[in-house]
């Protein structure tokens, strides 16, 4: 007999599940080692029912990991006979095809038992700053990307599997940090498991099964009721993503069929997989397609397997969006992140108020810095950041968030105390947001300097970049203008962001992340908003005139309504 839950009890129990994952999520910030995890929150905690269906994920999850885990943890669970799991078992794995798309994303998964019965699984994926290998976007196969950990037991029945620890320790540059973060993952799972057991005990439910069915069913229903409102039809879009080096650009062909409350996304016709690290595994492609649809149709409801049920994805094997082993995948976000805006672009005509223009944080910008200090000791630091958000029908794009992924920046003071480098600037770039009725978010500049005095590190300083938009800026929507492109300068000259860059004492590296695309015709933007943007130094007097047809007095920074009317009139005619 399945347990039934009245609406009130259901809400209460559901809330508790979320707070359990959030507790486990919060424990990470307190115990993690790498700044990428502890300061930049590049990790996701979640748990599934006994069948591997996702039940809850951390509120601050990054959607790429979360979406990929929703599929991947289920696969991972199946790698061992289900009756063979024992309390105290912990599995580790970073197989990109099985899980989250690149080797740096290491998953630690544990079964949860209650009264000797397997009830659930808890898993967390951390983006490890270092997984060995060659740090660059232009690797040719996954073996160059680093250490490959197949599904193995890290703990067996509570006993640590020392050879696995040793194997990891000897294949990475910063073993203390990597092992420290794995310990933090084990702790996070422990917190989650303990709380689930406590909940089963407190409530007397005995099993999670019926609650899981109920939650997943209701979530699916909610998602479907929202999709149902979209007119049936096939909506298509295309993304062109700049290729590394001299190769042809990568093309994503997307066709979205809405039929009743079902959505099928077909990526047939997309480019074949590439011989650099931008290849995306199916799970990761799915994650960012799902991210877009979830954000449009049911952003508030806690995420679980039910939300994904109405969504099907066809991605032909061997294409860049469903690459085959052993493709290089380290830089998969350089293509994978584009799925989200491609979905928005396809569905924009059908639901113009539910989408945003392209964002400067797509793809996220990641910098891997490493080298040796002048005393010979190694240092290693990974930082991530976003750009300006795309604008929407009601809002200007926010400045500088990582989108569609999620994460935080690393404070400059933390970066400088962890590395021998200096940060000379970190600032907003005025005029970098795409003009529009609603303005795209502004991009940002960061300038790094290598000291050439007694603080100089040993040359070379290595920098691997994962980013994009150096040639094609984030596009606008409905007449909105694109945001500013990305730039990578070494000593003021264009560098190659797609190769490992090496530099030395005295060198200065500038990294500009793009602004977001605008939404709607800039000539329709409320002139007072433009006046406000100029007064706040987000938009220059010149750009106000050129892009928005708004005349602002350069001295007083006041709006000249009359001159604006005239200028806009003549601009509209032309």
């Amino acid at each position: 007999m399945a347990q039934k839950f009245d609406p009130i009890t259901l809400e209460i129990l559901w809330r508790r599940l979320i707070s359990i994952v959030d507790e486990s999520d919060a424990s990470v910030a307190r115990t993690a080692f790498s700044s990428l995890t502890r300061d930049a929150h590049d990790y996701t905690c979640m748990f599934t029912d006994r069948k591997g269906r996702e039940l809850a994920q951390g509120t601050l999850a990054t959607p790429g990991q979360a979406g990929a885990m929703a599929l991947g943890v289920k696969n991972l669970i199946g790698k061992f006979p289900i009756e063979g799991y024992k309390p105290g078992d912990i599995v580790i794995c970073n197989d990109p095809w099985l899980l989250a798309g690149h080797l740096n994303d290491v998953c630690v998964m544990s079964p949860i038992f209650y009264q000797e019965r397997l009830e659930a699984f808890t898993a967390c994926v951390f983006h490890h700053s270092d997984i060995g290998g060659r740090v660059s976007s232009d690797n040719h196969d996954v073996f160059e990307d680093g250490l490959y950990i197949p599904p193995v037991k890290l703990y067996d029945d509570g006993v640590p599997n020392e050879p696995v620890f040793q194997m990891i320790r000897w294949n990475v540059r910063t073993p203390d940090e990597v092992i420290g973060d794995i310990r933090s993952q084990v702790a996070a799972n422990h917190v989650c498991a303990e709380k689930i057991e406590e909940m089963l005990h407190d409530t007397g439910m005995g099993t999670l099964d019926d609650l899981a069915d109920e939650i997943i069913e209701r979530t699916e229903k909610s998602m479907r009721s929202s999709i149902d409102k979209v007119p049936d039809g096939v909506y298509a879009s295309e993304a062109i993503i700049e290729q590394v080096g001299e190769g042809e650009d990568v093309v994503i062909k997307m066709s979205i069929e809405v039929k009743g409350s079902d959505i099928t996304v077909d990526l047939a016709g997309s480019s074949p997989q590439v011989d650099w690290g931008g290849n995306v595994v199916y799970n990761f492609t799915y994650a960012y397609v799902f991210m877009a649809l979830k954000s449009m149709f049911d952003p508030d409801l806690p995420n679980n397997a039910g939300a994904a049920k109405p969504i099907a994805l066809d991605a032909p094997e061997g294409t860049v969006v469903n690459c085959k082993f052993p493709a290089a995948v380290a830089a998969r976000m350089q293509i994978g992140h584009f799925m989200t805006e491609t979905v928005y672009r396809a569905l924009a005509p059908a639901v113009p108020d539910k989408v945003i223009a392209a964002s400067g944080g797509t793809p996220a910008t990641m910098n891997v810095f490493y080298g040796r200090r002048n005393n010979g000791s190694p240092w290693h630091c990974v930082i991530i950041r976003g750009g300006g958000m795309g604008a929407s029908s009601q809002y200007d794009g926010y400045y500088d968030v990582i989108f569609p992924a999620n994460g935080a920046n690393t404070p400059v003071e933390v970066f400088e105390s962890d590395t021998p480098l200096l940060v000379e600037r970190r600032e907003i770039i005025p005029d970098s947001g795409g003009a529009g009725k609603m303005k795209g978010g502004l991009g940002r500049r960061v300038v790094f300097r290598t000291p050439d005095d007694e603080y100089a590190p040993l040359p070379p300083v290595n920098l691997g970049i994962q980013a994009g938009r150096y040639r094609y800026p984030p596009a606008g929507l409905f007449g909105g203008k694109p945001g500013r492109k990305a730039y990578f300068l070494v000593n003021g000259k264009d560098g190659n962001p797609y190769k490992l860059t090496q530099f030395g004492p005295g060198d200065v590296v500038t990294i500009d992340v793009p602004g977001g695309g605008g939404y709607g015709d800039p000539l329709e933007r409320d002139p007072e908003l433009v006046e406000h943007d100029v007064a706040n130094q987000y938009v220059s007097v010149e750009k106000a005139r050129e892009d928005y047809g708004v005349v602002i007095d350069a001295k007083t920074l006041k709006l000249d309504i009359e001159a604006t009317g005239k200028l806009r009139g003549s601009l509209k005619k032309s």
Partner: protein
Amino acid sequence: MSDKVYRLGCDIGGTFTDFVLLNDETGEIKIHKCLTTPQDPSDAVEEGVVALSGKEQGFVKKLDEVIHGTTLVINAIIERKGARTGLITTKGFRDTLELGREIRYAPYDIFSEYPVPLIPRPLRLEVDERIRSDGTVLKSLDTEEAKKVVHELMDQGVTSIAVCLLNSYENPVHEFMLKDIILKEAPDMSLSISYEVLPQIKEYERTSTTATNAYVKPLTGTYLAKLTQRLETLGSTGKLFIMLASGGITSAETAAQFPVRVIESGPTAAVIAGQYYGKMFNIKDIFCFDMGGTTAKSCLIQKGVAGVVPTFEVGRVQRFMKGSGLTIQVPVVDLMEIGAGGGSIAKVSRMGTLQVGPESSGAAPGPICYARGGTGPGVTDSDLVLGYLDENFFLGGEMKLDKEAAIRGIEEQIAKPLGVSLTQAAWGIHDLINETMAAAAKTHIAEKGGNPKIVTVAAFGGAGPVHAYGLTRKLGAPKLLIPPIAGVGSALGFFTAPRAFDLVRSHKASLAEADFAEIEKIFQELEAEGDRTIQKAGKAEESIFERSLDMRFVGQGSETNIAIPEGDFARIKREDIRSKFDEVYKNLYGRTYPESEIEFINFRVRASLPERILQLHKIEKKEGISLQDTIKGQRSAYSPIAQDYIPYTVYDRYKLFPGAAFEGPAIIEERESTIVVGEDTSIAVDEYGFVWIDMKKEE
């Protein structure tokens, strides 16, 4: 000195200003409540003092202390009514304040809103200078340029300046040079220096905290000066103290220097009161629960001490969503705040489930039963329908409630759409809000490593005693305590608050290599500064110092706080620090790694003055009064155990006497609140008028 027997506590809230006057000799307490006067909050203070003079002739001249808590600071930030403020930063970093930490607090919401910085871009200027992360000077401050920058801000009409330079937490030399320049060029300028406000690593958090301090400094200074003057005019020669969000109290002068530390000090008083009761009755773990109209705040007090956390978010733009507010890094009592109060509105969600809050109707228009135009059924409506509140005895009968309208509202908007009965719907609202609070409470308690099954719940606030029983049941807690005058009783916390100030200095050094003599010097400097700060109060009492360390494994980003004994740090053994760290770490996280290196990050000192004793007034039993005389009658109210309406006995709290004891179900009414307990309780009243409720074990 001997005739100065009175202390006055005064809490300015959003709607009401509460006063509690204490006679230290007799322990007698007089209370007063009047409307807050937002245009000049000291108006209400004067009004209250005058009104209390009517009840207690001539007390003003005999005031020893006036202790004051206020929401003025937080409201100025939320309403953006602070000063026109300028920010001076290191060249290249004027946007730190605006860029924040970048994380999207709601990952699937592409329309999330973020707070607008308190200081706009044109008022954020840069100076050419640079300190390295180890504190050495890379580039000296260009003082000529600095002067120009100050004048530029003056020309822009700035009345307050925040200074926050990169890596200044390691070496403030340039910040102090700027301070001198500003004092010279603009003597009237209000000034906040990051090294003085928050000498800690992480530039966004430090800048945001310093900027916030600068933003509210002029108005706090003006207000406190005015208040001091008004109290003097009324004839008070008592010293004015201000409560800080950390639970300590400090002189008005210090509060005016660091208003950001005051932030929201009213709710903290309830916790301090709870802490005091814990000590008074020797209860180790108290769960303080304060429920008002729009929010409920609670806090776990363990071993007599409430936790203090280092950060706070102010002015969340998406209600109660963590991450949507401005970050300030000041010590605050670790209150858990949730959007659940008497005014919280219930509705049916798109999912077909019941939802209560976080939207609230507040005091105006209020829930439907207030009959002031509110149309959304609220928690108070359900409390009324369930029989917990008396429509004719709300605020002692001053306000008549419209029960019929409340019934209609719940019936039509909740019961029908959900396909349940009126009673199920009303109970659902009451129970769900309790569950929301219980779930949050359990998380909060669990995070602190506590156990809900051993806590004593202490309830405060207008709605607290109505919901405390349900919360206590859900927590599985054995005991519930309702202090006297629970509706305003949090103000008693002012009298028991430690007169304390917390200081911190960051300095990274490995345990193996740190110079302990150098650390002793840091501690001594912090103590000297702390001494100066708290002794401004002009008391002839010795300062007390508590030292602690924030330490971590090399490579970790979060620290673990370790208390250390008094005495010369240079004489402490390294291995003792090590074993202390391992002990604390293992206790918190299950295991520790003695082979991995650890380091110092922050050094902390709490400076305080000795605690003052609060002598509570004892209540007396009137001659010949029996329990029967305290009964007002019987009322039918909902019992979750019987799952039906059953008769509850209604008691008059003002008539209850020491030793009175009876069994639930019971409703105990006082003017500002109502206690509701079910049939699984035993109730006893003690000599101070505290109501003690024992929860009987189910079986």
